């Protein structure tokens, strides 16, 4: 439950957004973030469907690499 996933915002609608990571798109909530909210193209750290903090693109890339390595290790 504590594993956060950095996701890229694709579109915004009200307090929700569509965001994607590793080719998966899902709806997330933005209501835990202080205003002003992120824009499409920005990255956020997502926990159980809620963005908890903004992150930069470099960090998101590094996290995705780690994530993929873990999933690969898990399958091995």
């Amino acid at each position: 439950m504590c594993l956060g996933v950095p996701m890229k915002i694709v579109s915004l609608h009200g307090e929700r957004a569509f965001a994607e990571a590793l080719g998966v798109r899902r709806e997330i909530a933005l209501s835990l973030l202080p205003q002003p909210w992120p824009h499409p193209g920005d990255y956020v750290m997502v926990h159980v469907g809620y963005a908890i903090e903004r992150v930069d693109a470099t960090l998101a890339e590094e996290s995705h690499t780690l994530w993929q390595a873990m999933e690969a290790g898990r399958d091995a």
Partner: protein
Amino acid sequence: MNARDTLARIQALPAPLRPIRVLNVCGGHERSITELGLRSLLPDWVQLIPGPGCPVCVCPEEAIHQAIQMALLHPLTLVAFGDMLRVPVNLNKGEANSLAAARAQGADIRPIASPLEVIALARSLAPRPLVFFVAGFETTLAPVAAMLAEADLPANLFLQLAGRRTWPAVEFLLQAGSSFEAMIAPGHVAAIMGANEWRFVAEKYALPVAVAGFAADTLLTGLHAVLRHALRHEAALDNAYPAVVKADGNPQAQALLAKAFDIVDAPWRGIGSIPASGYRLTSLHAARDASLQFPVAISGHKRSGQMPAGCDCAAVLLAHKRPSECRLYGRACTPESPIGPCMVSDEGACHIWWRAGERVATA
């Protein structure tokens, strides 16, 4: 600085006479450490030890039993994060001893991965009551608090809370006499609550502490900071995850938490009661308290508050033992047929070690 350089700097540190034990309190950290193979890369004098960082593992038996009975005896649907469903509790033979077992007996119990799913499910099931059984740390309770603040939350949605705060458990371990010389603080808990929440480790207990994230570079940067301080007998708070963690955290998330929950003393399975470590719905949300709406009698616990017989999960959570030192590890207890909660949850140290291929039982 990249991870390889930071690792080299750690390897170049002068070896002390005695090992330095570094506690982590987050299943995500334990998973990164184990799956990146950091223990085999670091010098012998660095011992990375997992602690109480598994919310499912510390969820009291009574809370799980209550959820089981609620789902069996009342006409309702109960949802919980998937990890929770297979956690066994000590009950008499023949009784449903996990949420999964209760589901097999006909209770409507479903796994969920997000409060957003819970809202959608409550809408689709209305007016049938939906009980959300919540275990988790700050990273889970903040989203639940945001869910509670939604304007049109369905009236048939109720909560049973078993959420816990992380830092009081660390203070509990430190007051009991520390079994570690430094610690890595949980990065995403700190993203919400702020790096400063961990300053007490340095100022009150004189141990180095660093907030770190989950990729190799931030984790190694945090480790390098605390090891360097420990070797010099210095205490300090470092933030090795500044890209995500601010000194005072996320003020919006903290405001939502304060509006949704009061802080209370709370029991931790295998550990006991820890002051100011739990959450209770504020009076604003009292009507959503599932334990008041759907009362059940839960008695007959053979060994209340304990882990299963022979299981060292409590000692693992208290950082007194490593997973492979448990007599059941890999013998009677595996992820396929777990005995203790540390082997059930994705965030349990036993589960993480076994999944990563740690096969040598040292008990």
